[in-house]
């Protein structure tokens, strides 16, 4: 569904991604690991269409369409979801209003009928149970005053509501205690479908104990320097990222 070819991207004039190649098929879970500053979050943001990141070279297709030509909201409506590392607060805008708009914008885009308030609330109740999010959170403003854990759970809840084809989880485990981590991971696993795919961007292995990847890629200095199966997670855990650096002759 997603094919990335020789992707280069800059942040504030500095090249962060330096030739990424990656293919993701339906039903797969890919983990992207790497030391701090290797470009993991940049890749997640570039794919989601954050305009602070400038693509300088390469191409990305999403279900055969040129992803880089789409604006961020169109990418989302095409089924790409980013779980933010730092979810943003929007004071005064209720979660319900926010999500209802998001869901219905997407439905309109796919020429589906908008959900009525009643239907929307029904779906919301189901998904809330699925991801075990506190019922009160959806009555509050978007992420306002949420704890770190609540924000991350809220991301997974939104993912459940929007049912993306490709979910990118950007450091979703950061700032989570072990219970919250389990809940979040459980939510992600429940949402897995044969026709969907997930990219888990993480620094540590612990989230991958719960969301088991089919493929693991190590990102270093803006390039994927190693790809393997899930056993790579353990190897990295054991030997650390220095091992990769040594292998690369640094």
């Amino acid at each position, binding site marked *: 569904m997603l094919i990335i070819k020789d992707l280069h991207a800059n942040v504030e004039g500095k090249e962060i991604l330096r030739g990424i190649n990656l293919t993701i098929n339906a039903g797969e879970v890919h983990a992207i690991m790497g030391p701090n500053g290797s470009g993991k979050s940049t890749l997640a943001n570039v794919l*989601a*269409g*954050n*305009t*602070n990141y400038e693509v300088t070279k390469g191409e990305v297709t999403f279900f055969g369409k040129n992803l880089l030509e789409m*604006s*961020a*909201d169109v*990418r*989302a*409506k095409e089924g790409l*979801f*980013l779980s*933010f590392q730092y*979810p*943003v*607060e*929007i*004071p*005064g*805008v209720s979660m319900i*209003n*926010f*999500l209802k*708009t*998001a869901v219905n*914008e*997407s439905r309109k*885009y796919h020429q589906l009928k908008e959900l009525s308030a009643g239907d929307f609330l029904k779906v919301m109740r189901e998904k809330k149970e699925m991801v075990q999010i506190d019922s009160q959170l959806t009555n509050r*403003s*978007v992420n306002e005053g949420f704890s770190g854990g609540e924000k991350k759970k809220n991301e997974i809840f*939104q993912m459940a509501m*929007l049912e993306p084809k490709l979910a990118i989880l950007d450091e979703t485990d950061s700032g989570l205690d072990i219970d919250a981590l389990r809940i979040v991971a459980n939510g992600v696993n429940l949402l897995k479908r044969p026709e969907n795919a997930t990219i888990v961007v993480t620094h540590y292995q612990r989230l991958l104990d719960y969301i088991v990847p089919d493929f693991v890629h190590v990102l270093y200095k803006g390039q994927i320097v190693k790809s393997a199966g899930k056993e790579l997670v353990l190897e990295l855990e054991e030997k650390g990222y220095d091992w990769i650096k040594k292998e690369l002759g640094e």
Partner: protein
Amino acid sequence: MDNQNTLINEVTDRDYRFGFVTDIETDSIPKGLSEEVVRIISAKKDEPEFMLEFRLKAYRKWLTMKMPDWAQLKIPEIDYQDIIYYAAPRQQAKYESLDEVDPELLSTFAKLGIPLEEQKMLAGVAVDAVMDSVSVKTTFKENLAELGIIFCSFSEAVKHHPDLVQKYLGMVVPPNDNFYAALNCAVFSDGSFVYIPKGVRCPMELSTYFRINAKNTGQFERTLIIADNDSYVSYLEGCTAPMRDENQLHAAVVEIIALDRAEVKYSTVQNWYPGNKEGIGGIYNFVTKRGLCKGESSKIYWNQVETGSAITWKYPSCILAGDNSVAEFNSVALTNNYQQADTGTKMIHLGKNTKSTIVSKGISAGHSSNSYRGLVRVAAKAENARNYSQCDSLLLGEHCGAHTFPYIEVGNQNSIVEHEATTSKIGEDQIFYCNQRGISTQDAIGMIVNGYAREVINKLPMEFAVEAQKLLQISLEGSVG
């Protein structure tokens, strides 16, 4: 940053929705202002002597006054001799039924979303429609009269209730109050008049809709609301004007008097033509609005959503004279393109245990300038007075400005005055977050701004709140991406 600049530099493409002109015969007098003109206006309105005296006194005072220059506004020179001071849709002496009203006029108000046919009215709103200074039609007048409520045009009030007019006119805003108020006192042509008798709770929202249509005219309307002991009324005011390249002056005066335990809620959605993207044209909105909590435990609430006008100079204020009286000012002021607004309030505490609250939300986009100016004064005798002020500014883009000028004067030891202020920028990260959920940038801005203003919008009556939300969104359309 660059991205945000390019996004925000693309300023409003959407046309002002109410910019049409109605082709209607107008009865107007020549341009210019003189004692003679004041006399003509008074004569045209067939006014009693006391009104002419009131006008002449105001006019003579006005001659000695200067335009105020303390506001954070750049006001081009105004030639007061180049304005038509009286323009009225040519009409029969008085409409007995809607059938007699010019269909063009009716369709104008229908286009504005204000049908005057009573059967089509939204339940529970009585409307007084004022076009070019003259009240066209007041709906539900008879129903209200059964309760003793007077809701009519100012001219009719002068004719039928001269005692009330004479007693209260100028009580809160005297003719010598300020330059624009004096001008209004001299030349005002019409407006709305409300009297709620003792113990009566007005069962419907009263609403006045102001429309400027004629060219080169100034609009000077006058609203007087009197709430007698233990009464309640909620009053709404809306306004629009055609798109024109030249500026037009609007200098209104609103006076509210709340007697013992009376409660008045005054809500405005101000949407005068703001001028075009380059800042050409638009209304100069120089308005004096003031309420007097005259009686003990009386309450006055000002709620305003300001999105229109090229220049706004407006400070709906309250004098808390009665002991235990309460006043609130809740405001959202949005400026885009080259609009300028200097708006805020004055809370003058005179009575004991008086309480006032100010919530002001400024939103600036484009090259606009948006200032909050507020005075909280607690007199020595106003023991245990309380004020809480909150002034927030939201900036969109790099070229707009927001200013806050709070003045606080406390004359005793046991009063408490609190002031909080914040300035924030609409975050690119907020917009991206919305985008990532499939919400377009335009919708995201509308959503974020409405969220920011929600506290105030929630204070508006239901239908007004919906209109205000849409208006905030429309006024910013094109301001980003």
